[in-house]
């Protein structure tokens, strides 16, 4: 039997019962499509978390009060209750080598009012260095200046989300930054003058930098927090990527001395760098991706069993045909190949449709939910190989069974 004849025979056998072939294929289609779509969602969120962490700032080292309980988690006592970091710590860190800039911060969520509009958002008290450390770009106006900090000026720099919430003239018109500059807004009852608007950075999830108001550190301590001595976080920018470990170690040693702690395991602060956040986040998302892929793989397995079931039915149904083929000279191998080819054609066809559907599903998911998806070529190739392999694995037993039929009994079969 030539390859061409084999393909022709297979094609006509598969198309003879289109509904049944279609339904059988559907199992593989759904399996492959869900693998492609779910892996795309997993990889997409991995990429988007990565990019939002990158947008936090380059070579960033973050110091927060409280101790890390275990590797990879940053659980700590409720923010504010652990008051161990001071602005003086920040000043001391500035003198370490390879430290580019240091920004102490205090933050909280407050009610913000402008005329009839109000919103509840993050208010961050900080110093001018924050602009550099955390890659904040100003669209219009200025960021908080040194003078603002030393004079505790009641000035505010608002993010684009806040701008739209407070200053949009109507629900369908958007506000321009110029509409906000010079206006007075109320934060927790205190009046602030808007001096700048930041550029939209995008990002979502745990740290939305667009929905934020920046005010001078001292102002925040006086008017919002009531207490003056502590900060909720200190951000440090190292001069180079390579210097980050050294900077991190130096900060740890310096703060241990300043806080009179001898045992490093008892430290009342945590020093994190961006790389460790990235690795934690990506290990979380890769686990997530694996989980999704595993769920999808189960449906693929079910699809494979469906193929086997149909092939076994087909073998039984076509017993007489197999008997005839043997009577007219077909060998065992001819029969095995024919039935294997049928199941591979079904799974491969299903795989092809599945890839297309999975890709479409990934696009639709990202359009509808806004989750970033990324369809990767290696996974598509893998899906093809897997679907062909499923055809061979689940088609082998029925094919051998067909080939092993005794022609006399097969011809007599009713």
């Amino acid at each position, binding site marked *: *039997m*030539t390859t*061409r*004849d084999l393909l022709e*025979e297979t094609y*006509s056998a598969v198309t*003879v019962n289109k509904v049944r072939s279609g339904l059988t294929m559907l199992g593989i289609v759904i399996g492959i499509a869900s693998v492609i779509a779910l892996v795309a969602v997993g990889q997409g969120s991995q990429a988007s978390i990565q990019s939002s962490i990158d947008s936090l700032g380059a070579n960033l080292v973050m110091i927060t009060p409280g101790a890390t309980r275990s590797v990879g988690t940053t659980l700590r006592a409720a923010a504010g209750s652990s008051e161990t970091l001071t602005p003086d710590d920040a000043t001391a860190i500035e003198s370490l080598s390879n430290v580019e800039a240091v920004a102490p911060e205090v933050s909280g969520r407050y009610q913000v009012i402008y005329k009839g509009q109000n919103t509840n958002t993050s208010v961050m008290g900080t110093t001018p260095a924050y602009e550099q450390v955390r890659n904040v770009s100003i669209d219009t106006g200025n960021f908080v200046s040194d003078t603002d900090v030393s004079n505790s000026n009641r000035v505010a720099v608002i993010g684009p989300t806040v701008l739209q919430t407070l200053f949009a003239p109507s629900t369908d018109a958007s506000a321009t930054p110029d509409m906000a500059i010079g206006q007075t807004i109320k934060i927790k009852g205190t009046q602030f003058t808007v001096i700048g608007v930041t550029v939209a950075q995008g990002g979502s999830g745990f740290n939305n930098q667009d929905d934020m108001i920046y005010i001078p550190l001292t102002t925040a301590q006086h008017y919002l927090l009531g207490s003056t001595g502590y900060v909720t976080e200190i951000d440090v920018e190292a001069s180079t990527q390579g210097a980050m470990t050294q900077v991190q170690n130096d900060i740890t040693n310096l703060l241990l001395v300043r806080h009179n702690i001898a045992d490093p395991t008892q430290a009342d602060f945590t020093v994190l760098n961006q790389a460790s956040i990235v690795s934690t986040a990506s290990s979380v998302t890769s686990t997530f991706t694996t989980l999704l892929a595993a769920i999808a793989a189960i449906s693929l397995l079910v699809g494979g069993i469906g193929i086997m079931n149909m092939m076994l039915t087909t073998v039984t149904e076509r017993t*007489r*045909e197999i*008997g*005839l*083929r*043997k*009577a*007219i*000279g*077909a*060998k*065992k191998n*001819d029969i095995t190949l024919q039935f294997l080819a049928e199941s591979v054609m079904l799974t491969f066809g299903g795989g092809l449709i599945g890839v297309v559907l999975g890709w479409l599903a990934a696009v639709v998911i990202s359009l509808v939910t806004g989750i970033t998806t990324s369809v990767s070529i290696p996974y598509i190739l893998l899906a093809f190989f897997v679907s062909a392999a499923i055809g061979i694995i689940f088609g082998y037993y029925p094919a051998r069974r067909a080939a092993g039929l005794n*022609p*006399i009994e097969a*011809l007599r079969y009713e």
Partner: protein
Amino acid sequence: MKKDIIVCKDIKKAYGVGETEVVVLKGITFSIEEGEFVAIMGPSGSGKSTLMHILGALDTPTSGEYFLDGKDVSKLSDEELADIRREKIGFVFQAFNLLPRTSVLRNVSLPLIYANMPKFEREEIAKKALTDAAFPEAFWQYHSNQISGGMMQRVAIARSLVNNPALILADEPTGNLDSKTGEIVLHTFQNLNMTQGKTVVLITHEPYVAEHADRIIHIRDGNILTDEKNNHKRLARNEKDITDDHT
């Protein structure tokens, strides 16, 4: 002298072993010459089907020798038997055994697929076989399940011709047909035998059908009862003559 296509020497066939052993063929000896039209007749249980399976290289005898076209096939393996069937035997079955939803032409050329013949050549041979089996050209592209039973059996006969076999083996070819279409099928066999010299072996339990052959071998209880020339050979009428009767 014509050469022998079939030579059977003391063919025995038994199923099972020991206590449960059933002897179906108890020593069959006969030979068939090239160009003969032989009917093998016997009631059910006589062993004629088992004999047919051995003659058709679907099975091998427990003992004895069977030469088909000069080759001893009684001790071949399954795969070697498949080669013999592909090259030397054309089968016609009671139940036609055509591939459903497949064109007549494709059904007829099917055996040649296993001989690795190119498609164009296959179809040329299939068309000639269909003509020889008196199958009307207008129906060549019809699906096998769209034609009548008599036509289906002629498709099966055409299929048995495409490998130019040494032997055409027909197992109750008229069993599923009414007498009229059965006669047309028998006419087709007689025509192939008389005009083209094809060797035909017909297995049947009906004396009427057997009477269309030149020679009748009676089988009973695994033995040959009689083996004689048929002096009252019936000639089947072709389709045209039958139709003329009715008009």
